[in-house]
Structure formats: C-alpha cells, structure tokens
C-alpha cells in the first residue's frame, strides 16, 4: 500500500517509469548528507551549499544532454572533449585583437561548436554505421588533441558580463548557473514527455525494431540526440570558461566519466528506453556533493576518483539487475 502511494505521486510527473530509481536515490542522498554533515558540520553551511550548487550545474547540464543519447541505446564518451573545444572557442573569440564581439554571438559560437561536433558524431553513428562507443572514443581523442593544439597558451577572458554569467547570483543566494540548469532540465523534460520526438527517443531505446515498424526514423532521431548532447556539452564549455575566466586545453579531461556515472545512477538504463530526468537531477546532486563532502572529510584526493569509479560499477550492476528482474517479470 505504500507502493501505491508512491506510484500515484510518480504517475503525475513521470508516467514512463513506475519503478523509478528516484525514491531510492533521494534516500541515498539524505543518508549521504547525514554522514557528511556528521563528519564535518561545515558541509551543510550555506557557503558550502552555494559552492556545491555552483559547480555541479555544468555536469548536470551535460548529463541532461547525454540522457537523450543513452535513452536511444547509444553512448557519447566525447562530451568532455566537446566541452574543451567549445571553451577554447569562446575564450579565443575574446582574444582576437581589439574587436568587440557581442555576448550573444560568443554564446552562439560555443553552442555551435558543440553542435557541430555532435553532428559529426551523429553522422558517423547513423550514416556510416560505426558503433557509437568506438566513434565517440575516436572523437574524444581527435578533439582532445585539437583542444590541446589550440589551447597551449591559456586564453584569458576579461569581459565582465561573460564572467558574471557563470559566477553571478540572483536573489543573492541562488547561483545563476543553477537557474540555467533548472531551465534546461525543464525544457528537456517537456521535450521528452510531450513531443513526438521525445516519445520516439524512448521507443527506439526500448524496442528499436518496433520503432522502425511504427515509422519512426531511427537515423534522424539518433542524429538529433547526438546534436543535443553536443550542444549541452557546448553550453557546459561556455559556463566553465566563464566561471574560471580562462580556457585551456585540459578543460573537460575526464568529465565524460563523471557524467556517464550521473546518468547511470539516475536510472537511465544502459539498455535504453528507461529513465527520467528527475533521476538525473538527484544523481547530479549526489555526485556533485560527493567530491565536496569527501574533501571536507579529509579523504585524500586520489580516493575520490576511485570512489566515483566504484559508484559507476555499483550503479551499472544495479541497473543490470533491474533489467534482468524486469525481463523475468515480463516472462
């Protein structure tokens, strides 16, 4: 009977997934906050919460984009390199001589860079037909090399409005980036829930044969998902370079791992077709706070990566157990 209450609530916001991971995730999150605040009360101070929120939004935005790709059953491991390239593009645009480039143009350039690389990924996966993992592994290397090539001298950004975009606060308490995150999250949620494209995305992941027979253009939809993932990575690059006020070749190195962990933790099944963005929100909160909490609890830095790797492994094990249980229940 407790389940029924849970179901009713979840039904109104995400009818796609009755067995969503979100309640479990919320419990884990509460537990984690409890443990970290016991280990170091500074964890729940307002300043710390603000700093956590300001930093996790970049991973959150990119995770929202990656969700669409994983929902169709593909992977995009190149989002870290896309972030690096778009950050360098934006920083370089502020450094060509004395020309003044208006802010919207720079933002558009960053997003365009990300979209272009996403389009390359999409092209290679749909038209040429290469496995998405190998494609994005190759794209990761190619664009990481390009980022290093053009980003050897760090490009500084002195333009004030650009920097406040990433560092500003509204109402003195909520970071601007959090607002962007929530807006993008809501936008993507509306797309996934209320448009045909969104339903196609879920359908392709759940049963691609049925989708094809129902008239869904798998190639077009998959292509668009890669573009979305590239665009969100581009936005991430803009925000990171604006927060740090410079851009360097190393930006985004290793990010793809963290964002993949967020998506898997959120209940986005790696087999495709299941998962909601609410889970992505909570998973972003969890992973964003872990690094902060671990360093406040005086755990050495090296253990942090091991921890995140462990979380990934546990998350995919849980995911595969749920897939198996679903298959058993269906049979």
């Amino acid at each position: 009977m407790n389940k029924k209450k849970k179901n009713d609530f979840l039904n109104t916001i995400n009818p796609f997934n009755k067995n969503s991971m979100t309640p479990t995730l919320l419990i884990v999150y509460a537990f984690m906050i409890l443990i970290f605040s016991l280990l170091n009360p500074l964890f729940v101070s307002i300043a710390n919460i603000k700093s956590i929120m300001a930093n996790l939004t970049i991973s959150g935005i990119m995770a929202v984009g990656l969700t669409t790709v994983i929902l169709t059953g593909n992977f995009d491991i190149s989002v870290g390199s896309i972030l690096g390239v778009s950050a360098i593009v934006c920083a370089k645009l502020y450094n060509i001589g004395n020309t003044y480039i208006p802010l919207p143009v720079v933002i558009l350039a960053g997003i365009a860079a990300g979209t272009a690389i996403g389009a390359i990924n999409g092209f290679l996966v749909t038209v040429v037909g290469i496995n998405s993992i190998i494609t994005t592994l190759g794209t990761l290397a190619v664009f990481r090399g390009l980022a290093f090539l053009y980003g050897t001298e760090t490009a500084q950004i002195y333009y004030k409005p650009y920097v406040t975009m990433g560092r500003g606060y509204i109402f003195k308490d909520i970071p601007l980036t959090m607002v962007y995150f929530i807006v993008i999250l809501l936008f993507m949620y509306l797309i996934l829930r209320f448009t045909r494209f969104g339903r196609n995305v879920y359908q392709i992941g759940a049963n691609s044969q049925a989708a094809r027979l129902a008239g869904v253009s798998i190639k077009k939809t998959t292509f668009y998902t890669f573009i979305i993932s590239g665009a969100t990575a581009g936005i991430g690059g803009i925000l990171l370079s604006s927060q740090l006020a410079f851009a360097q070749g190393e930006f985004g190195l290793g990010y793809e791992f963290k964002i993949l962990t967020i998506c898997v933790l959120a209940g986005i099944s790696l087999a495709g077709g299941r998962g909601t963005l609410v889970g992505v929100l909570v998973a972003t909160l969890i992973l964003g706070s872990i690094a902060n909490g671990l360093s406040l609890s005086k755990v050495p830095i090296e253990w942090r990566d091991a921890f995140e790797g462990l979380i990934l492994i546990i998350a995919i094990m849980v995911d595969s157990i749920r897939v198996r249980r679903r298959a058993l229940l269906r049979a």
Partner: protein
Amino acid sequence: MQTKIKKRFKLTDTYILLIILFALFAFFSLVNRQFIAYNNISTMLKNMVLTGVLALGLTPLMIARGLDISFGNSISFTSVVMAVLFTVGGLNLWLSLVIGVLVATLIGFINGLLIEKFDLIPIILTLGTMAILQALALVVANTFTQTYSILMLTDQLYYFSTRTFLKIPLPLFVLIVFVAIFWFVLSKTKVGRTIYLIGANPKVAYLCGVKVTKVKILLYTFMGFIAGIGGVLIVALTGVGMSYHGSKLALPTLSAVLLGGISLMGGSGSVWGTLIGILIVTVIFNGLSVLNVPSYFIQLFQGLALITIVAAYEIRNKRALAF
C-alpha cells in the same frame, strides 16, 4: 560460390594492410632519414613489444565479443605494486614480479566475473575499473613512497632489456614467442575454435555445450595476466614503476587490434591481422615522434586513425551485405 567470394575478400584484406604498412614506412623514411636509423628501429621494436603483447592478449578476448580498456591502468597499478614491493618491501625481485602478475590476473578475473555474472556492458565496467585502478596506482605510490615514480633498476631487468639473442633483442623474442603461441592456439586447437564460435554466435555455442560464461571469464582473466606481463615488460624496459605508465596505452592498442580486422561483432579476425595492425600503429606513432610532432597531436591522429579504420570496415561490410 559464396565461400569462394569470401576467401578472395580475406586475402585482399591482409594485402591491403601490408601495402598500407609499406607505404607508411616508405613515407616516414623519405620524410626524415632518421627514421631508418638503427637507433630508431630498435626503439620502434621496443615500443612494439609492449603494444604487441597487449594487442595479442586483447585479440582472443575481442574475438569472443568481450572488451577491456582497463589494461592500461592495470599495468600502471601492477608496475607500482611491483616497484613498491621490491624497493620498500625489500622482497626478492622475482617474487615481486610474480606477485604483480598475480594481482593483475586477479583484476582481470574480477572484470570477467562482474561482466559475465551481471551481464554488464564490458566497456562501461572496464571504464569504471580503469578509474579505480588509476586512483589505486596513485594511492599506493603516494602512501609507500613520496613520489609517483619509483625506480626499479636491477641488473637482471637491464640484462633482459638490452641483451640480444641471435641479434634479436630479448623483448622482441618474447613477442615472437607470444605470436607463435597465440597463432597456434587460435587456429589449430579446439580452444581457439571455441573462442571463434563464442564470438560468432554465443547462443549456438551454448547449445553446443560450450560453457560460455566460464570461457569468457577465463578470457578476461587471461587478459589480466597479459596486463601483468605488460607490467613486467614496462618495468624492465623503462626501469621505473610509475602511476601514469599505462594510461595512454589503451587507445593505440585498441586501434591496432581493430586495424587488424578483429571485428567488434566478434567471431572473425586472426593473429596475423593483429600483428600487421601493431606494426602499422607503431610505425605511425614512431614516425610522428621522429617528426617532432607534439604528443597531443599524436593522440589526435590515433583517434582519427581509429575512426577511419572502423568506418572503412563498416562501409566495406555494408557493401558486402548490399544484396
């Protein structure tokens, strides 16, 4: 009639790869005379040994539809463990090497166990293992010594890496022996044919009585063992156990195996293809280094090569299937 066409296909494949190899070799030697210098050739052969052993170990795993990208960081971790055991722990050289190899084999076993028992996607799990191993390598190096790079120069290892036997450097000899063993097992024994069967169609293999999960776990464990051997080789060839030794090894080795014709779908490919793939990758890497190309650019080329190779194979396969 069908088999005839397929046979022609396979021959052309290897020939094309050989032509590409010779073309690359000629290109690099024309661009920079130093490429054919004796020093450079011996450096190239030394690099080839490491990538070669790893690619050879990866070959049966990928034929059986498995994948492991954590072997690079596994090498880092085992090299650090061996160096720590030898210098700080004061253990006998051979004992620390053996323990290192055992640790790597255990890691491979855990990989295989998790992937098979939980039906996980191999690349994602090994991505996680990769991260954990990198962190462990840093932690172990930092706790026992204060640096991330531990000197492990011994006479025996130095002897191994510099002496020649019949004019062939000993490490290269190891590679030749490995090639021979792998070729024999994969093409002439029942074990090898089982591996091909599992890759081509796991369900049929299961119905034929092959214990698919057990064999795959064994293959992952074997890959771990090969990574351990790679750790021994890297410690012998460089003389240090470093936490960052193997992190860049995954991409070139994967490219070498895919170049050699091991399909990602499993079930096809041969050791000779992998060997040519190793040669091509080593020539590209070494040629670019001789031309003083910065390392990130080399990474770019490796990524480009990977995409081009796999794209070429996919397009070729599609054309073959266009009935």
